[in-house]
């Protein structure tokens, strides 16, 4: 038996979070904790931290109502460097901790910071369930395609054949495509961005924060110590243009430098392929629609990613509205109270303890 849960769909990810008063404003400095940042020199995490510290004031939220929860890994040190509430938890479990927090505190903006090992290996189960439930949290998945904190073993996003300390003859593991995984897990907001593109990163983060429900943002992050240059192919200004596929809502999906631009079209067999711009017709051109109910085109877009980064879609793959888990959980609590004539107090507790079958023993007469 199922029942219509009848949820309104007008809220944003932060609409229940108290905002700053008239004339109040916070700066990047307000979000910078007094802790010395301890990532390796040149680590991509620095750029992401700076972008987040710089972007948080724009949300206009009260600082005390923002919480960052992380797991274990290099990126999971993130909460220590932000002057908000934070919890550096255990390996892989941050999404479950964030779920409990979000379900019980609608007035908080809850963020999860995780990495490819934390989210996709040891914590894979929690990640997919947080996504399918659509808990109102924002998940930043720092993907450096390597285990950094444990000093350089292959991760669930490392390419097949990767030579690492634990795979001297090359990794035999098929990697996950995090975007495909998230879409398969019924995620409502799925995006990809890159540590070095501050502007794009900020743009995507803003949309992710404002999305009501679980948002996952895969951030390509360079680890100069153990996997340097993993994203060089799309960072190099000269090559970048040829390889990145920028997903822009309402626009055709295109790739390549001017003069050699290619447009994504739907083949007769239903598959997608790039053809020279001029060969694409209005009928066959795939226009990007992040809001499409059906995630299959978003999934097909996610599959355009090639392991060598010769071809990489960037941007928001999917952004659809669906009632969030935490809203539904709270709505049931409210409904239960309303139906019963109000929330239970001591009198109702007394009734509950008594149940329906009681008997009374009188004091024995002496």
């Amino acid at each position, binding site marked *: 038996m199922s029942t219509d849960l009848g949820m309104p769909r007008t809220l944003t990810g932060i609409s229940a979070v*108290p905002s700053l008063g008239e004339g109040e404003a916070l700066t990047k400095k307000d979000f910078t*904790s007094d*802790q010395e940042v301890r990532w390796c020199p040149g680590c991509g995490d620095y750029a992401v931290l700076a972008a987040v510290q710089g972007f948080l004031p724009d949300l206009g939220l*009260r*600082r*005390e*109502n*923002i*919480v960052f*929860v992380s797991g274990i890994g290099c990126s999971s040190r993130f*909460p*220590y460097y932000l*002057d*908000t*509430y*934070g*919890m*550096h*938890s*255990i390996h892989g*479990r941050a999404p*479950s*901790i*964030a*779920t*409990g*927090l*979000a*379900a*019980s*505190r609608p007035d*908080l903006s809850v963020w999860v910071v995780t990495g490819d090992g934390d989210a996709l290996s040891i914590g894979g*189960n*929690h990640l997919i*369930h947080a996504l399918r439930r659509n808990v109102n949290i924002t998940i930043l998945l720092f993907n450096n395609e390597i285990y950094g904190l444990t000093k350089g073993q292959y991760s669930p996003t490392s390419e097949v054949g990767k030579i690492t300390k634990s795979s001297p003859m090359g990794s035999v593991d098929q990697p996950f495509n995090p975007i495909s995984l998230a879409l398969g897990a019924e995620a409502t907001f799925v995006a990809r961005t890159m540590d070095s593109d501050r502007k794009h990163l900020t743009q995507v983060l803003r949309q992710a924060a404002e999305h009501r429900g679980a948002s996952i943002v895969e951030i390509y992050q360079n680890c100069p110590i153990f996997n340097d240059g993993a994203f060089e192919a799309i960072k190099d200004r000269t090559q970048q243009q040829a390889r990145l596929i920028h997903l822009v809502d309402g626009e055709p999906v295109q790739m390549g430098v001017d003069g050699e631009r290619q447009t994504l079209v739907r083949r007769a067999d239903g598959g997608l392929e790039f053809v020279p711009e001029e060969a694409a017709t209005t009928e066959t051109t795939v226009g990007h629609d992040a809001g499409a109910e059906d995630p299959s085109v978003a999934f097909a877009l996610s599959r355009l990613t090639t392991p060598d980064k010769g071809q990489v879609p960037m941007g928001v793959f999917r952004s659809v509205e669906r009632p969030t888990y935490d809203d539904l*959980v*709270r709505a*049931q*609590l409210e*409904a*239960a109270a309303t*139906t019963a004539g109000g*929330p*239970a*107090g*001591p009198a*109702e*507790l007394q009734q*509950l*303890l*008594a*149940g329906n*079958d*009681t*008997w*009374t*023993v*009188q*004091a*024995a007469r002496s």
Partner: protein
Amino acid sequence: MTEKSIEQIDRVVIRFAGDSGDGMQLTGDRFTSETAALGNDLSTLPNFPAEIRAPQGTLPGVSSFQLHFADHDVLTPGDAPDVLVAMNPAALKANLRDLPRGATVIVNTDEFTKRNLAKVGYDSSPLEDGTLESWHVHAVPLTSITVEALADFEGLSRKDKERAKNMFALGLLSWMYHRPTTGTEAFLATKFGSKPEVLAANLAALKAGLHYGETTEDFAVSYEIAPAVMPAGTYRNITGNTALAYGLVAAAQRAGLPLVLGSYPITPASDILHTLSGLKRHGVTTLQAEDEIAGIGMALGASFGGALGVTTTSGPGVALKSETIGLAVSLELPLVIVDVQRGGPSTGLPTKTEQADLLQAMFGRNGESPVPIVAAQSPADCFAAAIDAVRIATTYRTPVFLLSDGYLANGSEPWAIPDVADLPDLTVQFATRPNGVDAKGREVFQPYARDEDTLARPWAVPGTPGLEHRVGGIEKANITGHISYDPDNHDHMTRLRASKVAGVEVPDLEVDDPSGDADVLVLGWGSTYGPIAAATRSARNAGVRVARAHLRHLNPFPANTGEVLRRYQRVLVPEMNLGQLSLLLRAAYLVDVRPITQVRGLPFTTVELADAITAAAKEVSS
């Protein structure tokens, strides 16, 4: 109709046994409610297979429900039944060895077909071959009489009619022991409200059973058992799992905190999740997680946000939650972990009871990771134990283990319903403002500054301005809470966490020693309370001097524990494990306590413990 005689008796133990699909648990539950309503004291022991529906008519498919009731206080579900109701050959075979000679057996003869007999390895019918010679047998064709009594119900199939045979059995037993049936009638009306014909059939079957007792010559005697003398008050019957769930709700209300349960279904703890999920009106949020780890993660996340986080599970689940319990030790946040213990290791005996998770609760984590442990001693006591666990968790900002077990979870007993206003006040003070100054003289929040008395750290919940701080599983610098790898700091913090738990306020151990000069002490914990109390009573009645004490708190132990242990020449420690409490006591107090152990998935019997007590008393006096 001949006038039938009525005998007055002071106690009886009845066991209903049948196939898993025969509705024996329901029958037992209803008989228990009727008995409670009459004011008898009682104790119950359901015993069912782990399989939902094991093959029909087989030994593994037998489900039973034992009830002990009396005109005096009842401490256990009874060692052996005085009356066995056996709905099929499997039920007879599985239970006969527990039945003392001379006891009464009521058998459903309809099920004693060649095929059913063969299924359980009977070559001939025990009803005819003399097997039951030493017992008082009532052979009743329960199924066919039920079907006959329902002949007029044309809308029901034969199968539906047969299904009502448990109500016939209930009616018959209700006649035998003068139990009222109005409660059952009301119960059926609610259960089958939407199916009037099924309701009418069940009522008719119940009546037919009563009538059968009244009219059949086979049943010449019925029995009356006077109400027990119990302390004044309003009572209800309650199972351990229900009492535990209610205790958590009551404690949350007394603490002024929303209750958030993160849980993954597991036998025998799932009923707590079910009960709490129906109490949304009481501000209870239940999150059914994707696994055990997520269950406790959700609870801990809620605690960080200022709720009372609780997770419920059994031993295998605790194993999965261990790392998060360690995190909670490090975060120093309130959290209640309910472990309804069952037989282990691994999957073990999911539906059978055991007390073998004590050492897991005590030590089952990496590093020095102390967690207070509270244990419930009877089904109704799960309520008070839950409140005490919440008191410790919120006062000391620590995860707390609350240990129950399969026997307490499903067993039931009368409970004097407490007045909510008399429950302890557990009001929690959240941190609201900075509690220190930094080197530059600015006011700051120090998340690991401690309360002098309790050593608890402040609970500063997100949303409180000025108290933004970070917690985590990496060692924290004392007071400031910053990450610290300093050797002296780690040593200090480890000792602080240990001192905090060692300093949890728990009442002294009370000793029950009516003669005042016993040489033998029986010390127990958890659900052995009933069997130990019954056994010491029986030994004392036989002239043995024996003292008895029971531990509610396993970590820390009450301050006087060592002194109590040393007062006696011999200390016996009965446990449903291989001596886990004994190990802890020996280590802590260097006292040579003697374990009495069994892991049969069932509680101790009064007789086996009374014999052990008597033997020990003899040994020390000679």
